């Protein structure tokens, strides 16, 4: 789901909740009755789900009702999505939700391969946050065999990123090599920033002027995280190179300005002179980065 769609969905939910807070809220008994029969107007069923109290100690049967609704493939996707949303909120209840946690996770695993793509993605996201082994297997399989993928590769990589202990690095490096989609490549680089063995990959991409700027900027971040000294050397070369992309130069200069490791560079008179010259460069980003560096340096 992209940001715009998510915002629309969230606004609709807020509007609906505002309605429920008024005199249109459904009493619990009626909400339960509406959900207990397996058919009916989806809109009414969604309103029933949103009216079900889940915070009271005696709300256990409501959670069971939601689990059954979520599990039922006959329910419309929107109703199941509403049930999942309510269960996700309930899962923050701590000890009150604990008795249902095992059944909740098992229900999610049961529907992780559901035919409804958005539900599948949402479910895999919850399981991935839980570092669930089954969900990780499914995501990994989808990356190795794209024809069996349950979510787009960029999403799969993002979800695998919830667990640095998942064995993702070799597979994600393969994806990076074979994929042309920019979003997928960017997610792959974000994830590999946790993998010390990818240091060389980041160094190569950062130096490669044929790569798009976002890829090189992410490589700069990855290299900075894995080998700050190697990044420092590469960043100084990029900043000094007038044929380089100005936005990338600005990114590198920003890192050298703010990160503690680089005090020696900040104190180097030759480098300071070099940066001073950039205060009159036409690029707004690079110019303001240079100004910030000089301000920080003079402090």
């Amino acid at each position: 789901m992209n940001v715009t769609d998510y915002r629309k969905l969230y606004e609709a939910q807020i509007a609906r909740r505002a309605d429920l807070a008024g005199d249109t809220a459904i009493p619990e008994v009626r909400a339960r009755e509406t959900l207990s029969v397996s058919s009916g107007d989806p809109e009414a069923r969604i309103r029933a789900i949103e009216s079900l109290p889940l915070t009271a100690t005696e709300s256990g049967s409501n959670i069971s009702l939601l689990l059954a609704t979520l599990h039922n493939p006959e329910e419309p996707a929107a109703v199941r999505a509403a049930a999942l949303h309510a269960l996700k909120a309930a899962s923050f209840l701590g000890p009150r939700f604990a008795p249902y946690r095992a059944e909740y996770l098992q229900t999610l695993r049961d529907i992780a391969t559901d035919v409804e793509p958005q539900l599948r993605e949402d479910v895999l996201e919850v399981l991935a946050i839980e570092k669930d082994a089954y969900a990780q297997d499914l995501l990994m399989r989808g990356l190795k065999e794209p024809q069996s993928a349950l979510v787009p590769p960029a999403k799969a990589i993002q979800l695998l990123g919830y667990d640095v202990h998942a064995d993702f690095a070799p597979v994600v490096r393969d994806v990076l090599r074979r994929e042309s989609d920019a979003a997928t490549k960017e997610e792959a680089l974000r994830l590999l920033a946790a993998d010390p063995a990818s240091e060389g990959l980041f160094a190569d991409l950062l130096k490669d002027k044929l790569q798009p700027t976002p890829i090189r900027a992410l490589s700069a971040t990855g290299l900075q995280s894995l080998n700050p000294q190697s990044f420092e050397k590469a960043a100084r070369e990029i900043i000094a190179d007038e044929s380089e992309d100005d936005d990338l130069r600005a990114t590198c200069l920003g890192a050298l300005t703010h990160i503690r490791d680089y005090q020696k560079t900040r104190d180097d008179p030759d480098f300071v002179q070099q940066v001073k010259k950039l205060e009159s460069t036409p690029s707004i980003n690079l110019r303001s980065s240079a100004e910030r560096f000089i301000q920080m340096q003079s402090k």
Partner: protein
Amino acid sequence: MNVPAFGGGTPADEIAAYIDTVRRTPAQRDALVGLLAEQSPVYAGRSTNEAERLRGYVLASFETTGLPPAALAYVCEELESGQNPYTVAAAAKAIRGADIVPDRLVSLLLRAIDRIRPADDAVSFDSYPSAPSHRPPTTALMELIRTLAWLGPRAGASLDTMESMLESHTIGFSAAVQAEIKHAINAVSRPEAPAARSCCASGRRAAPVEHATTLSSVTSAEENVENLELQDQNGALVTFGEFFYGRPSIITFFYTRCMNPDKCSLTITKLARLQGKVSEQDLKGQINVAGVTYDPAFDLPQRLHAYGADRGMIFDDRTRLLRTTGPFEPLQRRFDLGVGFGSVTVNRHRLELVVLDDVGRATSMFTRMLWHEDEVLDAARAATPL
């Protein structure tokens, strides 16, 4: 039966098939113990989840094959500090195959129940779990409580706690778990059979949980690490010999990306407390206190500094967090460390702390179970030349 030479590339299903074979031939159960060592090649390159699933599958097998004494420490470790419901449940099952039960078993089980309670999950051990089974009838909490029931009257110390779990104001247990608790209360409350009063006659004898070893033989003296280069939390370089020789040392192992709060985070917090005790007892400067990371490529100096400082360490010449600047393997071989590695970072490790004398010989090792600051300090004092 010869144990096949499994490696990190062996498909998990193939290893599981071997474990299934041993389940059918209990006389071969000792062969499974080798698969529990974290440094076993079988775990090389695997994710933490896959490593945990394999270990859990091995542990659960001991319920049917019988629990070999050599596997008891692994089971107790899991009950004391395991976070994965699958592996903890497997340890609870393994105990039910034991002839000798550890003397702290009841408290270990109660501790595990408390820890797993907010993280309970469905588990199934009938076959290797490559896919979710259909509505498995058991969870990690249920397995832990079944083990209390299995102990019967010997779990008498758990009775009050179990009864309080069922009190009306208590929430947090499913109906199925509550049914298990009721069953366990009945089993534990049962009058003890005369034959069972004798620990030997009952067939379930009590044994202490061993976690401290006085040693020189366990570690590999052949692996010379004197010139191994280390870097501390401030970036300073020093060789192993320069830092550790000349006075006794306490070394523990950890890594900053460890997700188990009862392992690395607690270890470094305890190391900071130990440092305080060293100072209180006028031993400051006479004993080295150090933590060495398993994950040197990621745990760069600034990460080590932040991790230690956040947990109360006050760094000085004799108190440091360290990383190897090259490969970690020489240290792993030198101290036979129980750690395995996935493709990105550590996939599993045991708790381990080594006390060295002033010439770098290991004199004591504390492994798997949580160590206490005072016993470590006593061991360090014993290693101090008079």
